C-alpha cells in the first residue's frame, strides 16, 4: 500500500516536465505567502493576546506604502506566472509538423480510436514513443474530455465540431486514459489506457491487427457508398467540385469569400453543404446529416486528405 503513497504523477510526455516545473514554482509561491500569513497571525495572536478587559490598544488606521507593497508584489508574481503558463498552453496547442495523426471519436461511454493505417481500437491508444501524435477528435453525442494525466494533457471533445490536441510520449508503458468531462451514467467507466511502445514494437502492433486497410481506403469505400463520386468526379462539368488536391488549399466561395479546406470545412460541407458553396457551383448538394456517423466522416476526411498528396481516383 505504501508504494501507492505517491504525491506526484508520472512524467511521461515532453509537456509533463514543463507543467510540473511551473507547478512547483506555484507551490513555492503559495507556501511562501501562506507561511508568511500564518506566521504573522500566530505571532500577533500570541504576542498581543488580551491581558485585561479594559486594555486600550494603540489604533493604526492604515499605511499606504504597505498597501501598495502587498498589492504590487503579488501582481508582479502573478504576471510572471501568467506569461509562463500561457507559453506552456500555447505550445500545447501547436502540434509540430511531423505529428502522426490519430482520429478519436468519443461516445457514451467509450473511446473509438482509428489510426491512419486503418487500425481501430476501443478504449486503448497505441502510440510510438518519442513521436509527436496529433489527435483529431469528435463525439457522437455529448461532451467528453480526453485526459491522459501522465502526459498532462486534456481536451474536451465537443459535439458539432472537431477539437484537436497533441503530445509526445517520452516513456514506454501503459498510462491512464480518462474521460474528464461528466457525460452521463457511465462517465467513470469511460476509461482506458494509452500504450506507449518502442517504434519497433509499435510497428509489430500495427501489423498484428485484423483490419489492416488504411483509413483512406476505408474512406474511399465510404465515399462511394454515399455516392459522393457521382457529383465530385474529377472531370470537367461535374455537378460538384473535384476534391483532388484541394485539401489544405484556399478556395473561393460563391459569396466571394475564401476558406481554407481543412477537416472542419469538410465536415461542414458534408453536414451543411449549402452554407459555404465553392465558387462556380450551385447549392444542390443534399445534406448527409443523420446519415453519416462521426467515424465515417473522419474516414472520408482521411480519404480526401490523401487526394491532396497526389493520389487520384
Amino acid at each position, binding site marked *: 500500500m505504501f508504494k501507492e503513497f505517491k504525491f506526484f504523477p508520472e512524467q511521461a510526455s515532453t509537456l509533463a516536465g514543463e507543467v510540473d516545473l511551473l507547478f512547483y514554482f506555484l507551490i513555492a509561491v503559495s507556501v511562501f505567502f501562506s507561511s508568511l500569513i500564518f506566521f504573522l497571525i500566530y505571532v500577533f495572536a500570541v504576542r498581543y493576546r488580551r491581558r485585561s478587559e479594559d486594555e486600550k490598544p494603540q489604533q493604526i488606521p492604515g499605511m499606504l506604502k504597505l498597501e501598495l507593497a502587498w498589492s504590487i508584489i503579488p501582481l508582479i508574481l502573478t504576471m510572471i506566472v501568467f506569461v509562463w503558463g500561457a507559453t506552456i498552453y*500555447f505550445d500545447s*496547442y*501547436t502540434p509540430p*509538423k511531423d505529428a502522426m495523426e490519430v482520429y478519436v471519436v468519443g461516445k457514451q461511454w467509450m473511446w473509438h480510436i482509428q489510426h491512419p493505417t486503418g487500425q481501430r481500437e476501443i478504449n486503448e491508444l497505441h502510440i510510438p514513443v518519442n513521436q509527436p501524435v*496529433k489527435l483529431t477528435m469528435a463525439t457522437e453525442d455529448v461532451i467528453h474530455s480526453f485526459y491522459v494525466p501522465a502526459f498532462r494533457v486534456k481536451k474536451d471533445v465537443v459535439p458539432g465540431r472537431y477539437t484537436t490536441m*497533441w503530445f509526445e510520449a517520452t516513456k514506454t508503458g501503459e498510462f491512464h486514459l480518462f474521460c474528464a468531462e461528466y457525460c452521463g451514467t457511465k462517465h467513470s467507466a469511460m476509461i482506458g489506457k494509452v500504450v506507449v511502445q518502442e517504434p519497433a514494437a509499435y510497428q509489430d502492433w500495427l501489423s498484428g491487427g485484423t483490419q489492416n486497410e488504411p483509413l483512406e481506403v476505408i474512406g474511399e469505400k465510404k465515399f462511394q457508398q454515399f455516392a459522393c463520386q457521382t457529383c465530385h468526379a474529377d472531370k470537367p462539368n461535374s455537378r460538384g467540385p473535384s476534391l483532388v488536391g484541394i485539401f*489544405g488549399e484556399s478556395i473561393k466561395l460563391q459569396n466571394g469569400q475564401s476558406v481554407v479546406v481543412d477537416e472542419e470545412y469538410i465536415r461542414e460541407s458534408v453536414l451543411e453543404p449549402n452554407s459555404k458553396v465553392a465558387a462556380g457551383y450551385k447549392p444542390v448538394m443534399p445534406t448527409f446529416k443523420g446519415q453519416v456517423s462521426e467515424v465515417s466522416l473522419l474516414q472520408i476526411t482521411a480519404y480526401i486528405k490523401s487526394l491532396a498528396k497526389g493520389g487520384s481516383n
Partner: protein
Amino acid sequence: MSQHVIPTRVYYTIFLALMVLTSLTVWAAFQDFGAFNNVVAMGIACTKATLVVLYFMHVRYSSKVTWLFVITGIIFLFILFTILMGDYLTRGWQVLPQSW
C-alpha cells in the same frame, strides 16, 4: 414630492421624434448600405432608446445615482457581448497544424 415636472410639450416632441425614427428605420431596412446595414439599424434603435430613457424615464433630470445604475447596466451588458464575441470571432484562429 420634489420631482422635476416635465412640460407635456417635451413629451410630444419626443414622441414625434420616435415615430419619425421608426419610419426611418423601416425605410432604411429596404435600402442597401452594404456593411452599414446593421450599423444604421442599431444606431437608430439606440437613439430611440436613449430618447426614451432620458425623457420618458426622466433620467435626464434624475440624480447621479440613477445615471450610475443605467450606465452600469449597459456596461455589463457590453462586457457580456464583447467577451462572448471575442470567443466566437477568434475561434477560427486556432493555431492550426501545418502538417499538410
